[in-house]
């Protein structure tokens, strides 16, 4: 406008609309990065396939009865060294910050293909490369699975904490269940590791209460 209007708060000349818009966008970037406690926007090197993402989010929306407080993380298995003839696989998850002590819910989602023979008895181990002996493993959970499709396997959140490594390795070991005994011969079991139905980990983390640590120490 002809007459330069002034800012009603501080009396300085107001900005031209474009300049104000550019300032607002910069403010928005700062505010979001601060809110997410990031120093810069993440550079996504290997985004999950859109279909896998959509499927995982749809599953979680169906599953989550009450809105979780704090943070929820979905981490897709990036590598497995599964020999497709058996179902002993190692799933690797890249977690920016391995779940802190505030982790309170963990589930491993596996998609079992229709070729599943009868009931599967599955054991899930956490593989830790940093123990005294070369790579030792800790049993996390045992599950029985009958029928193909998605299975959400609960893991003890205490078993996933600690260690500053950014990688979490889970080893799967399964047997076919016949009567009450397990058949030593490993059944044919294919895991979809690269497609839309690759395994993923679902974690829920309590918000870091400011000063909570101090209260606990006191």
């Amino acid at each position, binding site marked *: 406008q002809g007459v330069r209007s002034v800012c009603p*708060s501080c009396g300085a000349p107001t900005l031209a609309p474009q300049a104000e818009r550019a300032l607002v966008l910069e403010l928005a970037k700062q505010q979001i990065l601060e809110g997410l406690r990031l120093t810069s926007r993440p550079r996504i090197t290997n985004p999950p396939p859109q279909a896998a*993402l959509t499927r995982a989010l749809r599953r979680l929306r169906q599953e989550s009865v009450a809105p979780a407080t704090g943070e929820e993380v979905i981490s897709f298995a990036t590598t497995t060294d599964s020999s497709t003839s058996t179902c002993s696989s190692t799933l690797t998850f890249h977690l920016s910050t391995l779940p802190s002590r505030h982790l309170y819910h963990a589930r491993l989602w596996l998609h079992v293909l229709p070729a599943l023979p009868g009931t599967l008895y599955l054991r899930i181990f956490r593989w830790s490369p940093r123990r005294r002996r070369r790579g030792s493993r800790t049993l996390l959970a045992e599950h029985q699975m009958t029928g193909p499709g998605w299975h959400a396997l609960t893991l003890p959140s205490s078993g996933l904490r600690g260690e500053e490594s950014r990688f979490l390795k889970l080893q799967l070991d399964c047997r076919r269940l016949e009567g009450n005994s397990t058949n030593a011969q490993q059944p044919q079991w294919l895991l979809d590791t690269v497609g839309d139905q690759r395994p993923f980990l679902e974690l829920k983390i309590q918000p870091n209460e400011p000063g909570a640590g101090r209260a606990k120490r006191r």
Partner: protein
Amino acid sequence: TLTCEPETPLCCRRDHYVDFQELGWQDWILQPEGYQLNYCSGQCPPHLAGSPGIAASFHSAVFSLLKANNPWPLGTSCCVPTARRPLSLLYLDRNGNVVKTDVPDMVVEACGCS
């Protein structure tokens, strides 16, 4: 609360909608598509001091204090947020994990005079 119009000199809420596409951040922020970046601006003359833009009781308490002590208070009253709400974000972190988190006090809903 008062939403700012161009000629509003008094304390009000200035609304700006920011689309993440405009920031070039739609590749890592999955949900929502944008958010309201509002801020407070405008004057707070003495008779508005303490008017939080919503309830009057606090305003009347401050007003009577002002009258009781001195007609021309030395301090100034500022136009500040009086109500804010969190923003729920779904985004990809640097390892391609999907993170859903609630950022507290992200959206200014009401402005008032301190």
